[in-house]
């Protein structure tokens, strides 16, 4: 039975709790089945209760499945416009997965980061200005969300490929931004100490 370590992020009454627990595939698959059974009228609620009582990990697995299903339901309208239809795939059309324009999304994202980062580093007058400048720029970037538009295809146009979209999105993610900012700040500190 395959199992692997994974991180479960769950909440407690006192706040967020992160813990690492083994979660095996069988538990996950059972949770999926129970979730699916609950979409029907004849769900065996006593059986579900017994399953939950058998192992505390079952509860966590079910929560995880339910949250994943929530995420999918929320993403569904966007996915409908991003992903190729099944008839497109079946027809073997040149689909979003093989679009030569694909690199543009990631390229634009990288260029945007560079454009932001260079003025940050060039800013004189101390770390506080660097920090504030970055925060302002980051907020602007977020509010306009044009990085997001770089990879999100406009309706009616041929969609861009998703592989680079993944890269663009990951560059765009907050934690990457934050690490880039930290790197910029450490470069600034080094430059200041040389002076």
């Amino acid at each position, binding site marked *: 039975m395959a199992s692997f370590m994974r*991180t*479960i*992020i*769950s*909440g407690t009454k006192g*706040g*967020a709790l992160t813990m690492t627990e083994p979660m095996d595939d069988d538990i*996950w698959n059972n949770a*999926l089945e129970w979730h699916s059974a*609950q979409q029907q*009228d*004849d*769900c065996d*609620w*006593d059986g*579900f*209760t017994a399953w*939950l*009582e058998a192992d*505390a990990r079952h*509860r966590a697995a079910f929560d*995880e499945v*339910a*949250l*994943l299903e*929530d*995420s*999918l339901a*929320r*993403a*569904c309208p966007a*996915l409908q416009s*991003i*992903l190729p239809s*099944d008839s497109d*795939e*079946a027809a073997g059309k040149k689909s*979003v*997965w093989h679009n030569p324009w694909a690199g543009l999304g990631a390229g634009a994202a990288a260029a945007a980061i560079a454009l932001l980062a260079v003025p940050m580093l060039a800013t004189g007058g101390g*770390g*506080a200005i660097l*920090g*504030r400048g970055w*925060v302002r720029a980051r*907020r602007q970037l977020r509010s306009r*969300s044009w990085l*997001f538009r770089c*990879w999100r295809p406009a309706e009616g146009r041929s969609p861009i490929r*998703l*592989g680079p*979209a*993944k890269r663009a*999105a990951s560059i*765009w*993610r*907050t*934690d990457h931004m*934050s690490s880039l*900012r*930290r790197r910029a700040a450490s470069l600034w500190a080094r430059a200041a100490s040389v002076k």
Partner: protein
Amino acid sequence: MLARGIRDDMTELGSGSGLKQLYELHRAELLRFLVARVGEREEAEDVVQELWLKLGSVPAGPIGNGRAYLFRMAQNLVLDRVRERRRRARREQQWMVQETGVEPDGGEVADYAPNAEDLLSERDEVARIASAIANLPEGARRTFRLHKIDGLSHAEVATRLGISKSGVEKHMAVAMKHLRRALTD
């Protein structure tokens, strides 16, 4: 059919007294379910109390299986709590990210509106889901698309793709496993 009155298999009306009588009948089972579901008795009792209060606002209408209806309501109340915990955990995580960076001025952090952050999380989530789907093997990708996005049943997907129903289930299991990893890694 309405003359059958308040029974487990056919509750006359969804509103008020019918469900409340059923609630009284099944309260112990509901509480047992909730203790198993949330993991602690105190919270289970909170939920069962919340369920009782909600019963007053259930719109009138025939309900096929009153007992199952109560379990489903209880389940939905728990899921609301689980979702709220996730939202809170995400907000705290985002605040942590902002505060552990080189934040020169603490005042800047408060400028971020929680709603905008939630929206960003959702966009990030869509990007992750889309790329996870893009990386699925063809069978799992097409099955996922037809079942989850286009809303076809397992049987309809099986017919469309010319595979068995168990084939559809296997493809879906693969797809969900990939998505789970994409969203938790």
